[in-house]
Each structure stands twice: as structure tokens, then as C-alpha cells.
């Protein structure tokens, strides 16, 4: 196994920035260290070999960045969250003539499609617009295609049922060439675009922002900056949804939100 030291990691962060422009300096070091060491071990490389390898630029750096920014996602991930959304948040959103939702850090679209299905089943989809963003062009292009493997769909279907979906997930996709293709109707009010939470700013005002399983990758300072961005992107009394183990603790914005669901980390902006 290859051991990487924190000092070496800093060196690597600087080189990646010089080569690709991508800046990992706001990311949590212990997790980056673990993932970078795993990358070296998997590819049987030393740090200096990795740096030479990255200097080729292009796809090589891109793959490396991709490996370090975990893209794992599921439809209806943490099914309880969607149950809570339906019971605590939807009734409030109903009072708006037009609903704007931001899914920040959307990976390949799993969460955004889940949100679209939930809105559809609660009768709100036609007046909603979902903006789903990520910093990875690769995951975004696969999100735009709306194609998922049937193997993954099996897990997603179980989640959907646990989330008390009304029908069957298979009502929302058709199978072509052994893959699941999401129905066009679901993609109607769904926009996927590039947005870097650590560099780009506010681009609209939302009634709900869902940023789940993303905050966990940032360090304390970066995390506070991202919280500020999310806070400023929310309409007054809008909702902020975080991942299962992500709270407002250490965000600097604890006072500005009221807790809607302590266990599932749903908050409402109150000042």
C-alpha cells in the first residue's frame, strides 16, 4: 500500500491547480488524503509518477479529479428524506404560483429525477423548475441523457417504494438496449448546468435548495462560504436540505434557520 503524507498532498493540490485550474484547496484534507492514497495504490504509482502522469493534462487530469470528487448517488437516496419532504415541505410549496428548486451537486441526476417524480406525484411539477448543477461536465452530460443501468434501477426502485412512491419507478422510464431511459415528460422542467459551489455565485432565487452529500467534502472555511452561497440563494422561508449526516453545525448560519426535520436535516430560512 502507498502512504501519502499531508505535505505531499499539499504539493499535489498545487500541481493539480497549475495543470488543470481545478482547486482542491477548500476540500477536507483527511478525505482527500485517503482518496489520493487509494488512487496511487490502485494504479501502483508513486506521487512523482502521478504528477508526471497528470502533466499530460486533458482526460488524465480529468479522471483523477473525478476520482477525488466522489460522484456516488442514488435515486430516492435516504428514502425517509422524501417522505419528510412530502409531509413537511410540499404543502408549503403549494402556495407558490411558480416553484424554483436547486439541486446543488447533482451528480448524474439521480436526485433531480427523484425530485421531479415527487413533484409530479404531488401535482406540482407543471409549475416547478428544477435547476440541477454540478462541477463535473461528465456527470452532467450523463444526467442530460437520463440513462441509468438496469442494475442500479433495481436499487432505485426499492428506494422509491420505501419513499412511499405512489406507483412503480418503472412508470418513469422505458428500457432501450438494456438500459433505463427516463421519460421525456420528466425532463421537461429539469435543467442541468455547470456550477462550481466553490467559485461561482448566486444565479437565481429558490424556494428550496437541496445540497445533499456535498458539504461533507469541504473543509471548515470552504463549507462556511458555501453555506453563505446557499443562504443567499434561498427566498425568505425557503427550505434547505442537507445530507443524512450534514447539519448546520459550524456553518455560521445556525441562527438563520429553523429546524424542520432534525434527523433528515431539513431547514427553513427564517431571517
Amino acid at each position: 500500500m502507498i502512504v501519502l503524507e499531508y505535505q505531499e498532498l499539499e504539493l499535489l493540490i498545487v500541481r493539480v491547480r497549475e495543470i488543470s485550474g481545478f482547486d482542491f484547496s477548500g476540500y477536507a484534507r483527511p478525505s482527500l488524503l485517503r482518496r489520493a492514497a487509494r488512487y496511487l495504490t490502485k494504479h501502483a504509482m508513486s506521487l512523482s509518477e502521478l504528477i508526471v502522469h497528470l502533466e499530460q493534462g486533458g482526460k488524465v487530469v480529468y479522471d483523477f479529479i473525478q476520482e477525488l470528487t466522489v460522484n456516488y448517488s442514488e435515486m430516492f437516496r435516504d428514502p425517509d428524506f422524501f417522505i419528510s419532504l412530502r409531509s413537511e415541505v410540499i404543502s408549503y410549496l403549494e402556495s407558490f404560483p411558480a416553484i424554483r428548486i436547486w439541486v446543488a451537486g447533482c451528480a448524474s441526476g439521480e436526485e433531480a429525477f427523484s425530485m421531479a417524480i415527487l413533484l409530479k406525484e404531488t401535482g406540482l411539477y407543471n409549475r416547478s423548475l428544477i435547476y440541477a448543477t454540478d462541477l463535473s461536465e461528465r456527470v452532467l452530460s450523463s444526467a442530460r441523457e437520463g440513462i441509468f443501468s438496469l442494475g442500479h434501477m433495481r436499487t432505485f426502485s426499492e428506494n422509491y417504494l420505501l419513499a412511499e412512491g405512489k406507483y412503480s419507478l418503472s412508470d418513469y422510464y422505458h428500457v432501450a438496449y438494456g438500459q433505463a431511459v427516463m421519460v421525456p415528460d420528466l425532463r421537461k422542467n429539469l435543467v442541468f448546468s455547470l456550477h462550481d459551489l466553490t467559485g461561482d455565485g448566486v444565479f437565481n432565487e429558490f424556494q428550496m435548495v437541496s445540497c445533499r452529500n456535498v458539504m461533507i467534502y469541504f473543509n471548515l472555511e470552504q463549507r462556511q462560504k458555501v453555506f453563505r452561497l446557499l443562504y443567499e440563494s434561498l427566498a425568505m422561508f425557503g427550505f434547505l436540505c442537507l445530507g443524512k449526516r450534514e447539519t448546520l453545525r459550524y456553518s455560521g448560519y445556525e441562527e438563520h434557520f429553523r429546524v424542520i426535520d432534525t434527523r433528515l436535516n431539513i431547514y427553513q430560512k427564517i431571517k
Partner: protein
Amino acid sequence: MGGSSGSFALFEEIIKLVTKPLPCALIFVLHRGKSSLSELPVLFNSKTKVRMEEPQHLDLLDTNCIYFAVPDYHLLIGPDQRFYLDAAEKDFFSRPSIDATFISAAQSGIPIKAAMLFSGASEDGAKGIRQIAEAGFRTYVQNPDFAEAQKMPLAAIDAYDKHQILNEENLFEEIRSILYSHST
């Protein structure tokens, strides 16, 4: 302390040994199912008076506290003495992984009083406890002969043969004296 199948009951006994304030943080990493909801601090509530917690992301590490890794996240320890939760790949099909916690502790620069590995049916932990030993800290492995599941302690000893072995007879006395020793 790391363990998997067969370690739960041992951990319970170890917690009962904590009868007075601890001079260190005591961290347990136990393999558990993703959806296991039972919170260990609640489960073990009656066993000790010392504070027990499931550390959340970015919490500061404290002495005189017993910590339990939450299911479905790796529990990492940073050089800034904070806990970090990490949702990246599993090790040996496990999240939390014992290796992840041990390796991060070894790299954090924080002094480690001791690391211990107990019963389990996977090889998780072997790499990490070796790294802690090589960093110069004390390491202990349960004698595989009386571990409920031998694979975990065996793998650790295979990977590095200088761990001290915890035998059945004096297991708990020994752990107690290590916990309350004043070295490191």
C-alpha cells in the same frame, strides 16, 4: 479499537471498565449495517458514567469521551483534532472501515495511546494497525484462538508480527491498565 462480528460483547465489557475519567479519547469502530439505527451511546448508556457520543462531521476530539463511528460513513481523524465523516468507497465491503480510522489516526500526528483489534470475519484493520505500530505506538491484537471470528486478528498478525497479543485470561485487566496508563 476496531472489531467486527464477535466484538460487540467485548466492547460492552470494555466500556464497563471505564469507571473513572479517561485520560484519552476512546474510539470504537465496529462494522455495522448501513441502516442500523440503534445508537451505541444509548445502548451502552447504563455501562459507564463517562460521556459517549457518535461524532459528527468536524466535531473536535475530546479526552474523557467515548466515541462510536456512525454506520455508513468512514470516521477519519484530522491533524486539526477534528473528526471527519467520509462517504467514499468502502474498504473490505465496510463503511465504517477500521483501516480508514486507524490510518487517518496514524497520519494525524496526534499521539495514540494504543490501538487494538478484535474479533471479526474480514481483513479490515490489518493495514491500519500496522501503520500505527510502525509510527511507534503500542498495538494489541486479540489472540485469534479465542476470538469468535479469527480472520481479523489473524490478518493483523500476518501483516505484522510484532503486535502484542491479548490473551483471554487477562484481557480486561490489561485493557484497563492501558486505558489509564500515563504514557503517550
